[in-house]
């Protein structure tokens, strides 16, 4: 029974068990590692709103040119509030009840202009906005992309006042047709920045601690 062959079988068995365990663990950890899961989240939105068109200044695949609208035009509370705030549809309508929409080739949709707002509704997405939502008095249910857990109390205004650019967390939204999550927005990712050398905008207390931002618990959790 206990031959060399027996030994080899046992070695093979052990190699198989530990090997597959190791491979499985590695794969499992990689697949479940929150940073890997969270990044790249790009859900479909009720209205295919293009940040690239509105906020970007590049040329879109369909030839339209980005309008380079400042973020704060729509996300108007970002400098004063914890929330950047997704604008009410009335904000969209400030322009879309006035400004003519453009056709895919970039030319002005004169027909739409003349018969507005019904004409503009020719554009399916705009139609949704103008008729299904704003017209019907129904709120748009945007899918949250850049989301943190409920026990994290992130304050936009503090970060803006400290001199951060929107893109540092949200990525270059101006190039995104559909918004995508570019960072994990996990605690470790936040700490990457907070533990850096202090900058000029850091408050005195954290400068003394040689930190860019606070790293104690109640800074974010309460």
């Amino acid at each position, binding site marked *: *029974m206990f*031959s*060399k062959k027996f030994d*080899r079988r046992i070695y093979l068995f052990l190699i198989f068990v530990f090997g597959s365990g190791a491979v499985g663990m590695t794969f499992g950890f990689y697949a479940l590692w929150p940073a890997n899961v969270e990044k790249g989240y790009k859900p479909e939105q009720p209205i295919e709103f293009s940040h690239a068109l509105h906020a970007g200044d590049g040329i879109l695949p369909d030839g339209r040119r980005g309008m380079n609208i400042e973020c704060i035009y729509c996300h108007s509370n970002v400098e004063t509030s914890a929330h950047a705030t997704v604008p009410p549809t009335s904000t969209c309508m400030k322009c879309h009840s006035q400004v003519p929409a453009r056709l895919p080739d970039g030319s002005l949709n004169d027909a739409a202009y003349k018969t507005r707002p019904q004409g503009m509704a020719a554009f399916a997405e705009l139609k949704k906005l103008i008729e299904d939502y704003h017209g019907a008095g129904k709120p748009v249910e945007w899918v949250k992309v850049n989301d943190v857990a409920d026990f994290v109390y992130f304050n936009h205004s503090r970060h803006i006042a400290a001199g951060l650019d929107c893109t540092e967390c949200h990525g270059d939204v101006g190039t995104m047709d559909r918004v995508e999550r570019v960072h994990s927005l996990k605690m470790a990712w936040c700490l990457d920045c907070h533990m850096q050398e202090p900058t000029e905008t850091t408050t005195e207390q954290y400068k003394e601690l040689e930190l860019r931002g606070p790293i104690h618990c109640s800074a974010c959790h309460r």
Partner: protein
Amino acid sequence: MAEKEVVGLAGMFDDPNALIHAAETVRDAGYKKWDCHTPYPVHGLDAAMGLGESFLPYIVLAGGFTGIAAALGMQGWMSAIDYQVVIGGKELFSWPAFVPITFELFVLFSGFTITACFIIFCKLWRWNHPLHDNNIMAEVTCDRYAVVLEAGDDKFSEDKARSLLEKAGCSDIRTLFKTQNDDSFI
């Protein structure tokens, strides 16, 4: 049945004193590849076989110190360097609080080292043994003692070995044959 390959010679004893005597005889005869098999550790056999002190303690000590280094390194790095969480007004590297874990890891690493040494030096990675094939194993794990001379030894020849064992006072001498074909891998 074809002629079997001889892998060694086993001399069986019933008395530990005889075993010691036999071991001394074999040792003095200058054999290198040989062993004694006993159901329990027999005192004095190491000397009788010409084996020195086990070197295990030094390896284990090294393992233990690795544990201490790992413990202090881990605790220091995690508490004082990587994320400086201030706890109860204590310093970040509050070493007195790190002592218990350092000690535990010393013991743990030492223990793992012993186990590893067991597996390596007691050859616990090897299940096959010629004694199995010649039905001697059951006796030496119960109540008999065996002196086994391996065919691989330079001085080994079946007749000389047999006479050596006889000289050592052995009355039950058995030849160990290679019984199984182990060529195929699985």
